């Protein structure tokens, strides 16, 4: 994911559409057209209005609606993301994140 994506996207939650906040945990530089471009591998996207969080996993911003995040493989991947970065993720997200946090 590139930083410029945050200049384009707003929060996808229904009725929210607020500006998003990005916190980069891991990124690397790639060369493209002779220029160095930052590729974000892992990051946390948060919405200050509806308090949802969205992960960037393996370079892809995961911004699915709540119902598609709550179960299955996606839930497992997103929980693993919180676990992986629990030293950096804010405690209110870990404990009471929307749509979920980490299991106690």
């Amino acid at each position, binding site marked *: 994911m*590139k930083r410029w994506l945050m200049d384009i*996207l*707003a929060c996808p939650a229904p009725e*929210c559409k607020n500006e998003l906040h990005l916190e980069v945990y891991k990124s690397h530089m790639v060369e*493209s057209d002779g220029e160095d471009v930052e590729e974000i591998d892992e990051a946390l996207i948060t919405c200050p209005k509806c308090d949802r969080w969205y992960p960037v996993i*393996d*370079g892809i911003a995961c*911004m699915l609606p709540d119902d598609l995040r709550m179960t299955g493989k996606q839930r497992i991947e997103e929980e693993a993301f919180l676990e992986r970065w629990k030293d950096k993720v804010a405690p209110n997200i870990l404990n009471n994140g929307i749509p979920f946090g980490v299991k106690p």
Partner: protein
Amino acid sequence: MRLKDLEITLQSMERISDYDISLEQYPTPATIAAAVLFSAEMDHGDIGGKLVFDLGCGDGIFAIGAALLGAKKAVGIDVQSKALKASQRNSNLLGTEDTTDWVLGDVADLALKAPIDTVLSNPPFGVKKRGADLRFLRKAISIARVTYSMHLSGEKNRVFLRNAVEDLGGVVTQIERFEFPIPRIYKFHRKERHMIRVDLYRICNADCE
């Protein structure tokens, strides 16, 4: 870049090989994607220097093709993460990683900070799941000045879609028919490969001159 070069470049992409039937995904053939993109740029100047979205991007062929034709930025959104992983690999393969990006999400929920220039989309055909193509059109017309969208051909569908587009605040400015080869990717397809007719719609919204 010439049309032939764009075709050859897009043909080197990795295509997705297994499909989710409920999503009615049919990969856009490289030759058709190239023809659509080339005409959008040469006839209308809708790609070069523009902010482009590919709704239901699958393996990313429209977004990557747009980037190759000089789009300022091209973003693909899809609800399937394995499709986006293919898009990422394709983008790296074709050297468009600085101007493309990918979002895992539901097209209907996509929210942007500001209107964009152009949408390119090969939405679900909406045969098995009624209205799936209209959900994509509604979003496209609400965010983009110009939309290029592919739909099943046929007189009845043309009348229906023209009216639907008008209800959504858009105007159909052009329809072009393509023959779309569908490989036998679903079990209910009986022939090895069959041709279907697909219409490409060019749609302007209220901001379009």
